[in-house]
């Protein structure tokens, strides 16, 4: 057994456990995206950052891949961690603004404005589908291809793989391809991350930099303040 401190609470976990597991055991919430029970840790999204060590030596690590060490001092919600996490979310949101999962995470972390250019990428390269295909479906039909900017996920040569059984597991675990409600069909769309079930209250155009699914609704907040100061 290994003893470590998380947010000042002493906990002992089995050898080989990750910081994430230890924190979950204690009930400290750490948001994750690429991590999934049953799949090997991968550490792609960095959303699960925590701070370890103290003083100037303190550093940020991804808790889903970092093994618990004896005497480790972990902080799961320090200012630095929260700031980093928000930045990561903002960047993820910029690459995949249409993903409901990322939007909800962003919303939950108090992100109210999208400062970066929206890329509408359809993949954040978290590798969940790749691991799902290999580790749970035993197929290895899809994988990473290329490098750097050109890195993508897919089958070799972009043709249907002969080991693919069309199980759909890859899509099932994908955090990016779950679409959110859109502005284009206002009657069907629901503002506020589907949380408050009220119909959308804004037009998209005047607020193209905002994301209306965030609750409380940014647009309403702004309209209210604008009305107050009388613009």
């Amino acid at each position, binding site marked *: 057994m290994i003893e470590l401190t998380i947010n000042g609470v002493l906990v002992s976990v089995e050898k080989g456990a990750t910081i994430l597991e230890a924190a979950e055991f204690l009930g400290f919430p750490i948001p994750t995206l690429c991590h999934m029970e049953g799949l090997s840790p991968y550490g792609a999204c960095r959303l699960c950052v925590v701070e370890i060590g103290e003083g100037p030596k303190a550093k940020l690590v991804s808790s889903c891949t970092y093994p618990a060490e004896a005497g480790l001092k972990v902080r799961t919600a320090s200012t630095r961690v929260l700031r980093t996490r928000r930045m990561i979310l903002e960047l993820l949101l910029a690459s995949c603004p249409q993903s409901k999962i990322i939007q909800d995470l962003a919303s939950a972390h108090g992100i109210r404005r999208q400062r970066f250019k929206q890329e509408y990428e359809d993949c954040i390269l978290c590798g969940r589908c790749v691991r799902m295909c290999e580790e749970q479906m035993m197929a*290895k*039909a*899809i*994988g990473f*291809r290329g*490098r750097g900017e050109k890195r993508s996920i897919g089958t070799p*040569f972009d043709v249907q*793989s002969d080991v693919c059984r069309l199980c759909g597991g890859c899509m099932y675990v994908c955090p990016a391809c779950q679409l959110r409600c859109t502005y284009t069909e206002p009657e069907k769309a629901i503002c506020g991350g589907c949380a408050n079930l009220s119909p959308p209250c804004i037009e998209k155009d005047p607020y193209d930099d905002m994301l209306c699914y965030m609750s409380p609704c940014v647009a309403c907040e702004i309209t209210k303040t604008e009305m107050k100061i009388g613009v």
Partner: protein
Amino acid sequence: MTQSTTQLMNLPSCPNDAVDVHVIQRIVEEHNQTRGALIAVLEDIQAEYGYLPETALRTVAEATGRSLVDIYGVATFYRSFSLQPRGKSLISVCLGTACHVRGAPMVVEEFERQLGIRVGETTSDMAFSLETVNCLGACALGPIVAVDGHYFSKVDPAKVKSIIRKARLGLSPVEESVA
């Protein structure tokens, strides 16, 4: 180069790939089918065909028992591997920092103009492929152009023509260093 067109029976035939399955199998065997030898295997295949044909990769997957995604992942990861047929001569113009400030972009342009292709393309007669690289490790002699293992130093646009001519005539093979 082997011209036999044996196809794997259970694989879709690729008309452009004149790949001999046995050659690939031999290459794999030479490397004892060890896991770590994948890059060496791919290098040997590329030396044989000038690029990595699809059939070859599929054969490697079968011969090594590894999945095709892994092999494809490695093959697409490294810039030096090409999945597209390449010309007889490969012209690599260095665009590393040192060569860049010494005027390598002009050399690239000149090559593009004279060969009538863009970077990353191959001439229609399959004689030349043009690519840029990011430092060949001879910065003091830049701009550097490497053609089939031959290094040309201090290249300026005026020298491009003679480099192409020399390459067309066939550069004498570089002697392998005897260790």
